[in-house]
């Protein structure tokens, strides 16, 4: 017992520790893989809302979600965020950085969207206004408009622009379908990462 205490206190190693007990006034470097709060590059962001859908911290009666889509793009509420890094993983354009870990998250899972935009072909008059306002070029118009669900980011601008009420609808997906989509996307992402 005694030698053990002494070896921790009085040997050369222990004695050195005793005399110059580490003084940590300067704070240590962050680890190489630290997941920090997400920083969103608003220039690259296409405002798709995937990050907000993926974020595990949802909203409650009196608190916003950790990642909220606002007029100015996605905003991280630091006091809500748990630094899980999921948002960075799902962002389709890699606009989110979560500290040094970002480099290593090579799989980008494009998230399934919680809703989709559909065009009612009977009502659409093929005016093309939606195509003009769509920020992600998701719409093509021949006789009537068609929406590419992969490119659509659910901004709903087309709905505002459309002159025929009800020609463009936004339809929420149900949970089961959403979960299937999650699985699909993950699979795809992994294939991409490998191939």
């Amino acid at each position, binding site marked *: 017992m005694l030698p053990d*205490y002494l070896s921790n*206190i009085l040997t050369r190693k222990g004695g050195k*520790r*005793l*005399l110059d*007990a*580490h*003084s*940590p006034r300067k704070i240590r470097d962050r680890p190489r893989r630290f997941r920090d709060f997400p920083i969103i590059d608003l220039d690259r962001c296409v405002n798709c809302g995937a990050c907000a859908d993926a974020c595990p911290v949802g909203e409650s009666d009196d608190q916003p979600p950790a990642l909220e889509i606002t007029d100015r793009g996605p905003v991280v509420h630091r006091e809500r965020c748990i630094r899980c890094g999921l948002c960075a993983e799902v962002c389709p354009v890699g606009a989110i950085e979560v500290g040094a870990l970002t480099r290593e998250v090579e799989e980008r899972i494009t998230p399934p969207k919680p809703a989709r935009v559909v065009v009612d072909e009977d009502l659409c008059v093929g005016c093309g206004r939606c195509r003009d306002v769509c920020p992600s070029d998701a719409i093509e118009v021949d006789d009537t408009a068609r929406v590419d669900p992969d490119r659509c980011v659910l901004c709903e601008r087309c709905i505002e622009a459309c002159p025929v009420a009800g020609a463009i609808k936004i339809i929420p997906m149900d949970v089961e379908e959403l979960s299937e989509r999650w699985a699909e996307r993950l699979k795809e992402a992994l294939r991409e990462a490998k191939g």
Partner: protein
Amino acid sequence: MVVADTLLGVTEAFLVGSVYLGLHRKVIARIQRRPGPPIIQEFLHTLKFLMKEAYAPITSAGFLYWLVPVFNVIIWSSAVTISAVFRGNLLPFFALYAAYKVLSHGAGVSAGSTYTKIGGVRHAIMPAGELALACSLISAYFITGHADVAGILAWERAHGPLIEHAPFSALAFFTLVWVDSPYSPLDPSKGYDIVEGYLTEYPGFLRSLMYTAEALKFYCELWVFQAVFLGISDPAVHLLAMGALTILLAVLCAVTPILTPYQAVGIHVLVASLMFLDALIR
């Protein structure tokens, strides 16, 4: 003149005592391999608590509760005055120590919460405190023929330090100092299991007074130990010897866990009986 001396002595005792308590903590921290607090930390604590709000818990016994810390300071100021400042008779020292035990019990009971009561009782049942103190003082008297510090010091100049003549009495007294130093294994009256024992319910300046008394007590006991058993009379060497003792105590406190009340009492009794045996054999 006497008043000035007393005031000066008590102030010195308080300052030195709290710095040594800080040193005590610093040494423990260094053994734990961390930087540790500055050594004036205990002094800062005392000052801080002096300026904090104080209130009496609803369970407390009112008047008595407020009086206990004041008396605690008075007791240890007198002890310092008698022994260290005027190098007087040691018997009052014993009486004051006994009074302190009663007082700490009072502190526990008057505050009224369960923790303080248990802490107070635990503190009061540490028997060997007084026992060892009385016996070691008596043996000092029998060996040297003096009951006052000045006389013992004079005797020691002629015959060498008392620790050579009565090692077990010295051990008993050292145990006493050890018991009363913070983080001591032999003093379960302030254990974490009962939050802080009899001190739990003392907020604000009441605690500051308790801390002051603690610093005075630490100084006083160290002083008496090194004066009576080591026979040092030069003030500068006093300080050095007390510092060395503090470091020794700190090392002892750092490498031991706290004992349960029964075990602590057992060790006290063991030390006291060693001393008795020693006295009988002589």
